[in-house]
């Protein structure tokens, strides 16, 4: 057996019994140890999230909440949620309330931009979708042993901590073998190994993937809302991209009109001539994709024009 092979539940039990010196099931039953092994797996997986899964669900228009177990039964917690392949921004209820106190009454329409979680086991879409679509989840998986021959889906290098965890639980149990001091030592060993594993994980999965924690460092793609209205100014993620480009047009001290490839979002255009920032109205005007320089500021031959904007 190689070190990269996964252990079965029976192999875990054998190693634990060796440590407990109870190979004959005299003091601890298999059922007990199975419970401890399952709890160990939940604990390590919950803390370090080693195994990722993905699942999709067809969502009807106007759907406001989605029950996670309807999407997949092995979702430990949602991590990345996409609507029609576009990442949704996770927000807290407080953040939604700050944006618009009337957000729950926003009319159905367009693509959802925000995912929020108000109830355990459910996520909400905001605004509710105007048409049918697909919701894709990528998530840390909940792991479980079904039989003695099923293997743990945790990385094999975590397996030795199962011995510490199970012994800690076994010695904590009331009975002839209860030994709180010994349990404390095993618990300390287990937590120290957890710390070691988080270092290993950083080497193993350098990028990791963010937890679905509303209000976390996900890029929140929205503009300041107009308070009190029934519509909210949220820019759907797919409509917000940045572009740096050289506008099209002849630079010859005569031509005053230059064209961009996209229409910039309001107020987002930064236009530079030879590295000097131009001011809208004073130096130029913008109409959809067309930039028109004021007569006194038409770029001379050889000058470099550069535009940076959001669209």
């Amino acid at each position, binding site marked *: 057996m190689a070190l990269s092979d996964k252990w079965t539940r029976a192999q875990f039990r054998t190693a634990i019994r060796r440590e407990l010196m109870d190979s004959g099931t005299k003091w601890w039953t298999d059922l007990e140890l199975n419970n401890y092994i399952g709890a160990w797996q939940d604990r390590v997986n919950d803390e370090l999230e*080693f195994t990722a899964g993905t699942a999709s669900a067809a969502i009807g228009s106007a759907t406001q909440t989605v029950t996670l177990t309807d999407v997949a039964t092995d979702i430990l917690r949602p991590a990345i949620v996409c609507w029609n392949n576009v990442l949704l921004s996770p927000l807290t209820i407080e953040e939604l309330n700050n944006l618009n106190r009337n957000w729950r009454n926003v009319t159905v329409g367009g693509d959802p931009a925000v995912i929020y979680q108000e109830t355990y086991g459910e996520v909400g879409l905001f605004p509710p979708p105007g048409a049918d679509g697909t919701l894709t989840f990528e998530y840390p998986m909940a792991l479980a042993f079904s039989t003695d021959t099923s293997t743990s889906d945790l990385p094999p290098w975590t397996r030795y901590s199962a011995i510490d965890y199970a012994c800690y639980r076994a010695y904590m149990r009331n009975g002839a073998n209860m030994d709180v001091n010994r349990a404390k030592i095993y618990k300390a060993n287990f937590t120290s190994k957890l710390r070691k594993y988080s270092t290993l994980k950083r080497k193993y999965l350098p990028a990791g993937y963010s937890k679905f924690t509303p209000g976390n460092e996900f890029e929140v793609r929205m503009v300041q809302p107009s308070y009190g209205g029934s519509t909210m100014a949220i820019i759907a993620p797919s409509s917000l991209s940045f572009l740096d480009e050289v506008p099209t047009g002849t630079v010859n001290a005569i031509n005053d009109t230059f064209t961009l490839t996209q229409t910039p979002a309001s107020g987002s255009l930064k236009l530079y001539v030879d590295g000097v920032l131009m001011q809208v109205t004073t130096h130029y005007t913008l109409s959809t994709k067309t930039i028109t320089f004021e007569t006194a500021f038409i770029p001379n031959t050889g000058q470099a024009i550069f535009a940076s904007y959001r669209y």
Partner: protein
Amino acid sequence: MSLVSDVQELLDEVNGSVFWTAAHIYDALNEALIHAYADTQFTTSEGTSTATESSNFMTIPTTIMIPQYIVMGGKEYWPSSYPDLERYSQNWRGEGVGLPKAFIPVSWNVMRIWPAPDTTYDEVSVFGTPWPTEINGTNTDLTADRAFKRHIVLEAGASLVKNTLPQFAQIWAVESLEEKREWKRHLRNHKGRFRVWRLRPATSFSINRGGSPYNFKGYS
């Protein structure tokens, strides 16, 4: 002497398994080996995997414990991340199949490939720290530097006596760290990527020969 007999000697069990069975010692040694490999990453191996047509995911070869980089079609790829792809394009998930441009480790044994391959690529090499060879009844030793082996033995010993002889365990753990530091010093002096630093000429190269820009005469 082997790793197993070294641990037995440390435990004063040269003549047989009185308190610790062979299986106890194998487990402790294997755990110490895994941590030492992962921590020092002193060796790199190659494993081969397959990027299957239209499949978003690829299995990391079972010989590789910590993947470091991928080579496909003679080109190197470094592990990427979801935030990287989001910055590249917010519609990256909607991209059709094509020549893979990015590999993202998502689970301990799975990588996402983006975009999904347009055809099956059989020869995707994953380089990284390998899994150590398991210590068991037939493989009781490791070919390695003396300090590295001593580090493994002390760590395994400390882990075995942590409940019964905590003071010993603490001392051995400290000794084990010292041996690890010694091993890292050996690495620094002998391994290729450290030799670049060791072979630095007394007079540094000019910027034209790839030296530091701080040595450029115009730099002040």
